[in-house]
């Protein structure tokens, strides 16, 4: 079974470079100032590779994938 994961952005670290939205437009759009708006859903299994790529290319290390537990809260780091 694929684990549930969700994309989260650290708004302090994020500088609005926008690479994530290029890689994963299905889940990430940019607001009027160029900062990512992440869809409030789990990453579907078919997009998990792209989500991982978006996390890897973020130059500010502001994006991460969190496992979602049954309580629907982010996993503790």
């Amino acid at each position, binding site marked *: 079974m694929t684990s549930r994961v969700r994309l989260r952005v650290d*708004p*302090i670290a994020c500088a609005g470079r926008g690479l994530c939205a290029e890689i994963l437009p299905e889940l990430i759009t940019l607001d009027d*100032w160029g900062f990512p708006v992440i869809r409030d859903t789990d990453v579907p299994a078919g997009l998990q590779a792209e989500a991982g790529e978006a996390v890897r290319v973020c130059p500010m290390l502001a994006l991460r994938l969190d496992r979602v537990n049954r309580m629907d809260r982010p996993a503790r780091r």
Partner: protein
Amino acid sequence: MNTAECLPGLVPGEAGQPGAGLPRLLPERRGGGPATLAGHLARHGGLPTAAWDRRRREQFIAEVGRAGLTGRGGAGFPTARKLAAVAAGLGRPVVIANGTEGEPASAKDKVLLAREPHLVLDGAVLAAGLTGARQVLVVAHGAVREIVDEAVAERRRARCDPVPVRVLTGAGRFVAGEATALVNWVEHGIPVPTRVPPRISECGLGGRPTLVQNVETLAHLALIVRHGAAWFRSVGTPEEPGSILVTVLGAVQRPAVYETEIGVPISAVLARAGGPAAPLAALLIGGYSGSWVDQAAALTLPFSAAGLHPAGASPGAGLIAALPAGACGLAETARVARYLATESAGQCGPCLFGLDSIAAELDALAAGHPFDLGRLHRWLGQADGRGACHHPDGAVRMIRSALSVFAAETAQHARGWCCGTRPAGVLPVPARAGP
């Protein structure tokens, strides 16, 4: 609860069980200066030493829970839960009494510290006892720093506190009172919120479990520990017991800070301030992160979270600003929005750029220049919830409520003229904002 016991060096006053009514936090006193330690003890008695007994901590925290005390800094979090979380944390906890009060229109924390510094210090020291903390920091607004220093010195001379109390001046910024910003300020001298660690109750100052509690909350705590939950609950509503300090400003006869039972109608709070000084248009409730409510709808609402909720408002940090009829609510909103934009810590893009864009659009709206209401609403949606702290959310809430309450005025402004017939300036903003 045993109020006869007293800390070493303190002589219990003749204070028995006080009356249930008000005032509790702000008694009338001749002279007007801060309460002395002797006067304070005569009125309230000493602190119950049992609060330092490890085995009785849980009982005291449970009593605070039964009292139903919630944070008076704006968020309204149950105080007992915070105390329990910090007490259960890993490592020796720290207590920070938050008297930063960065909101320019609010005065209740300054007034409380200026008049009853010992009640706040009692609460802070008791919170240390209940959580096992061995240090207390009081972060006070610069305007009352000397009074707090003097009170702390007085207690030191009387050797009445089992833990050291240190005083710091808060950073004079709007977001500086946010709990993570406060820890950041104390630790690094940088008054902006942080995102990691997630909970300062677990990992705050120096990595220690940290209790950040508004000074008014601590003052209530000091009384609950002395007099018990039943006494505390004898005023207020069953769901939201106790009293609350409210800064009343704008078009009222006597703008000042008043203590009131939670749940009394807004009109009764205004009556405490001598009533309206002019016909009113609307009220801003809760603070600059609060909500505008039309005056006709507002006056009968109970001043409580449950009572204000249907109007989209909340008591927030305890503030009611009365806008007189004829003053332009949009101009007031634009001015406060600009202030809130400049008070962004500048860390999160949607807050930094979003609030600035929104403030510019509101400036145009207020001035009767061309503006785009659809774009303004889109921007409000894009700023809402997009920061590391709740600063943008509060600004968005206030501005959305203005666009709703002043909808007719917005339509007038769209036609190029301002609805105001009297000069604005009800809501104070510092002349120079920002770092």
